[in-house]
C-alpha cells in the first residue's frame, strides 16, 4: 500500500497481509494470521481503513442483494414456460 506513514519493513507486511484479509473477515484465517493482522492494524492506519472498508463493502453488497424478482416478470416467466395454470392471483 502506498502513502504509509511507517517504515519500509512494515510496507511489505501490508502487502503480505493483504492476501489474507478476506479469510480474516470470513473467519477462515488461522489464529496466527488473525493475531498478525490485528497486531499490524494497531500500527497501520491505512490497513485499518482497508480492513474496515472491505468489511463494510461486503456488508453493503449483502444488503444490496436483497431484491426479489418483480411480480410481473415472474408472471411473464410462468406464462412463457407454459405454467400459467400454476399462477395464483391471490393477494
Amino acid at each position, binding site marked *: *500500500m*502506498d*502513502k504509509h506513514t511507517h517504515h519500509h519493513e512494515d510496507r511489505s507486511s501490508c*502487502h503480505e497481509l*493483504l*492476501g489474507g*484479509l*478476506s*479469510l480474516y473477515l470470513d473467519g*477462515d484465517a488461522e489464529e496466527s494470521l488473525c493475531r498478525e493482522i490485528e497486531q499490524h492494524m494497531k500500527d497501520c*492506519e*491505512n490497513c485499518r*481503513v*482497508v480492513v*474496515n*472498508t*472491505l*468489511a*463494510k*463493502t*461486503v456488508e*453493503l*453488497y*449483502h*444488503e*444490496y*442483494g436483497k*431484491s*426479489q*424478482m*418483480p*411480480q410481473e*416478470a*415472474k*408472471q*411473464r*416467466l*410462468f406464462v*412463457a*414456460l*407454459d*405454467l400459467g*395454470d*400454476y*399462477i*395464483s*392471483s*391471490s*393477494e
Partner: protein
Amino acid sequence: MIGIIRFVDSHYLRYYLTMTESPTTSEQIDLDRLRSGDKAAFAQVVELYADRMYNLALKISGDAFEAEDILQEAFISAYKNFSRFEGRSSIGTWLYRITYNTALMRQRKKHPDTVSIDEPIQTDSGDMLPRQFFDWCCIPEKDLLTGEALEYMGEAIQLLPESLKPVFVLRDIEGLSTAEVGDTLELSPAAVKSRLHRARLFLRERLSEYFAERAAA
C-alpha cells in the same frame, strides 16, 4: 402476490432433495416427477428458485430484460435436462450453473471477446493494491444506501472482470458457501477464495472512490 397452487402432495414424494440454499428449506422436490416432465413439480421448482436465479442473471448481465430472457432460457434448458440430473450436486447448484452458463453463452453471442471464467487471472498483485484510504465506515447507514449509491454499486459489479464477477455474486450477494460456488462454477475452493478476495478489493476501491467524492462534494 403470485403463488403456486398445485404443489405435489407429500405422499407422492419418493426422492427428496433438500434445497439447502433455498430460503424455503423445508420444501422438498420430487425428482422422479421432474424427470417424467410433471408440470406441477416443475412449477414448484420455478417458484422456489426463480428469485435467486433472476438475481444471478441480473447481476451478471446488468439488464432486467436480459435477465428475464436468461431465466426463461435456463428454465427451458433445465426442464429438458432433468432426466440427466444425477443429484451429485444439489438441484439449486445445478440450476445456478445452468443460469450462469446461459448468461455466459448469450453474452458471448453478443460480445464474442467475452473472457471465460476459466481464463487464468493475473497473478501479479499490483492490481490488488489498495489506492483509496478514505474511511467511509462511519457514514450513517441511511447515507450509505441511497438510491444513487445502490445504482453505483450495480455499475461497479459490471466493471468486475468476468473471471471474478460470478464468484462475487454467488458468494457475497447470493450467500452460497465456498463449496457451492465451486460446484456451480467448477472451480476449486482455493480459486473461489482467491477470486472472491480480488473481487472484494476491486469493489472496495470503487466504493471508496465514490464515497470519498461524495464526502468532498
